[in-house]
């Protein structure tokens, strides 16, 4: 790269000018790169669909899955957990279940998913999941008490809990969980410890 210093610089002064010029150029390039990275990072952060939640303790969740087994949320501590409220009749819910299965398949060592069906009979869920299998447990909230306790106002709604069991994120509406910025946000939660800010 040519030194753009004034043509009047000559000899050792010229050499010094060249070095200073290179330093400034490198500094300018670094600054430009940082600005561009920051813009992208800021845009990504703003475009994430998550509502950040300050370290909230989740309501209790203990329910029965489609095979009749009891599943409790506190059995999942140690991993990032997605508690996902849905209904098979809700059109946006259906493709998201497949997206969640893919997420679980790719990150099974770090992520658990617990899907909660709101006010649907078991036989309907069994028929649905026979045709659309998923790789995570599905429990039933037949009388809506769990979705009400969790403050669910829309289906689908997903709460993301960190490995200590604290609620950190909430998503209302469907989401493509394969998006790199979404996965990156979930990866960040792996390292969260109690009372640690998430931003």
């Amino acid at each position: 790269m040519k030194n753009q210093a004034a043509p009047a610089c000559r000899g050792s002064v010229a050499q010094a000018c060249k070095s200073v010029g290179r330093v400034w150029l490198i500094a300018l390039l670094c600054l430009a790169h940082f600005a561009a990275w920051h813009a992208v990072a800021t845009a990504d952060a703003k475009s994430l669909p998550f509502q950040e939640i300050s370290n909230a303790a989740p309501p209790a969740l203990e329910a029965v899955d489609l095979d009749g087994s009891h599943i409790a949320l506190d059995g999942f501590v140690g991993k990032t957990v997605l508690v996902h409220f849905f209904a098979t009749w809700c059109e946006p819910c259906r493709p998201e279940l497949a997206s969640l299965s893919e997420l679980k398949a790719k990150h099974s060592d770090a992520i658990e998913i617990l899907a909660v069906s709101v006010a649907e009979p078991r036989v309907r869920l069994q028929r649905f999941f026979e045709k659309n299998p998923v790789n995570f447990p599905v429990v039933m909230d037949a009388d809506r008490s769990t979705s009400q306790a969790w403050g669910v106002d829309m289906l689908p709604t997903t709460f993301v809990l960190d490995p200590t069991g604290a609620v950190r994120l909430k998503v209302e509406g469907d989401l493509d969980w394969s998006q790199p910025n979404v996965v990156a946000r979930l990866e960040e939660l792996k390292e969260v410890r109690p009372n640690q800010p998430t931003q």
Partner: protein
Amino acid sequence: MVVNRREVLKAGGALAAAAACPPFAFAQSNFAPKPGAWRTFETVTRLEISKPAGVVQAWVPLPSFKSDDWFRPGESTWTTNAKKAEIKRDSKYGAEFLHVVWDEGEKAPVLEVTSRFSTQDRAVDLSRLGNGATLSEEERKLFTAPTKLIPTDGIVKETSDKITAGATSDIEKARRIYEWIVENTYRDPKTRGCGTGDVATMLKSGNLGGKCADLNALFVGLARAAGLPARDIYGLRVAPSKFGYKSLGAGSEVVTKAQHCRAEVYLDGFGWVPVDPADVRKVILEEPPGNLPISDDKVAAARQTLFGAWEGNWLAYNVAHDLELPGAKGPTLEFLMYPQAETAEGRLDCLDPDTFTYKITAKEVSA
């Protein structure tokens, strides 16, 4: 994030102007139900529990709504191999249903219920105050109270207040709510979620598409929030529309999936006034050739008529909400419009008659 919520609330104000338009602004039509000719119908509901397990029970709604001027429930009879079958009546709303219990181990539980009722068209003259039946204080309280699926506070009240702002009479409030539902309740493909089943979350989600039980419940919720007694009536279409609307009647004698919920609003001086904004949306969506514009003549005629009038081609079961089914292990029923059953495996899916299994037929008979 709720999509379109602010736009939806703003539209309430815009609709005030639309609601003030006189009837002649809509298309002329012959969709004019007129009381005067009672019709008697007979329905047969047949259940065959295809996968019995443990103790099997069923609860089948019976025509139990009564109104001297348009609906008279008749007798229900049944045949079954159950050990017990008796008519039960909910004390709060008067909903009647047949409760049937089979012996544990019964391999082929079967039930057939035959019910009769008489009905006729309804049309309330809204151009002048009549001698509408008065409403007792107890009924007024019952039909302005919230239910599990129909809250009347929060966003429901907020939306109702926006829609009815400046209205100077109860009938104006009711009509504005009706028109708002006709104008706004469609499925916007851009919305990313659904309500959870109650009218508040429906409004919060911004996903205002839905079936009759959703849209007419929304009418009832908004009306109650405005202080107007209102109620859903859960029922079943039993005959074609005499006015040629394919979407507003039963297409054949098999009415297994023809359940339909209508609504009423109580207006002083007029009594209970029939409304059905959900059926206006059904005409838009389903009346051939389908997906009609809201300006279509058939839609305009339905919109005009279904505030204040109904055709008598429909069975009124009940107005019950949050019903405890006696003997049931499953949850409280938010409304009773379909046969219900349970086995040891849990509650059967009333929206899937082919695996339940049940079939309902209807025919007109001599009185």
